[in-house]
């Protein structure tokens, strides 16, 4: 990397990443067929995140990039986390509105 400015990733590593990504695709399809309740989505997103990390680190040379570039990559996900995290903490903690759902609210509000 720093010795001559750019690191050449070997085809062997690319092939290994390809195999890992195909394995991940197979795993996520198999995992979806098992009923894990709310953990299905967690597992699916976990596998997708691992696949994404492999693509960024090796196919996109993130692992071999200068620190400056790596900071930019991480900052993108940091801002994404702020957007997703803060918005979803709002939406997932609201009471369901009876007018928007036929189901009774999970928590009944008792008025005196």
């Amino acid at each position, binding site marked *: 990397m720093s010795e*001559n*400015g*750019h690191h*050449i*990733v*070997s*085809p062997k590593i*690319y*092939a290994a*990443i*390809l195999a890992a*990504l*195909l394995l991940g*695709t197979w795993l*996520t*399809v198999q995992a*979806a*067929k*098992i*009923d*894990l309740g709310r953990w*299905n*989505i967690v597992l*699916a*997103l976990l*596998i*997708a995140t691992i*696949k*994404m990390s492999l*693509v*960024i680190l*090796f*196919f*996109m040379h993130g692992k071999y*990039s*200068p620190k*400056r*570039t790596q900071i*930019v*990559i991480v*900052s*993108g*996900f940091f*801002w*994404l986390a702020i*957007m*997703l995290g803060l*918005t*979803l903490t709002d*939406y*997932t903690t609201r009471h369901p509105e009876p007018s*928007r*759902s*036929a*189901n009774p609210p999970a928590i009944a509000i008792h008025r005196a």
Partner: protein
Amino acid sequence: MHRTGELYGQYKTLDQQKETATLGMWIFLVTEILFFGGVFLTYSINRHQYPTAFGVGGNMLDLFLGGANTVVLIASSFTMAMSVWSAQTSKKAWVTLFLIATLILGTVFLGVKVVEYKQKFDHHLIPGHGFDITYCSKSPAAVCGLSEKEHADEVKEVKDAIETEGGVTALNAHAQLYFSLYFGMTGLHALHMIVGAGLLLWLILESRKGRFDANYNTPVENIGLYWHFVDIVWIFLFPLLYLINRHLA
């Protein structure tokens, strides 16, 4: 715009020049992450609000075509990476060949997407006046190409969903939301693929002139980054759209 490997005045070395271009590409990709992030956020909020209708909608997608397309796109990312490697090691003929392979795989992906969209059209799953999530369950199994067992499962699933949602009108309204997001998200992704295919075509034409080698390969590298990014978007779209609640079917 006929840039080659010559050093521009504001840089000290060619490596610095290339790193700057790559950094700029990554800054663009960060804006793309946030752009797609907003769409994923919209999807998550609506999925949280209407899990039943979204579950039914997701189960109407063709898992085989979606899975096969995932494999195709991952393979195209591999050929793209190999074309960057070929350029870095000055194997000029291989740069062109791997770029052509990437373009072919990308086109196959888009072709499969067309087949899927046509299928949704036939099954009354295009949001709008003709939308009817119960169409396949109401029709004989052969109409939507389902086996007897798949059809029986779908009839049961749709019946349960109508009950949970409190009527077929509510289910259709919320399932339309799912399919609007499905077409919006996959459409936006496909648009990026089409732009990528255009860029690849340009790269292939330039590569045929023998322009990319160990000394100068910035366009191959940076368009490669874009192509991998589009692959990553699909890596998340596939499980989110096709796989959640698949076990219910």
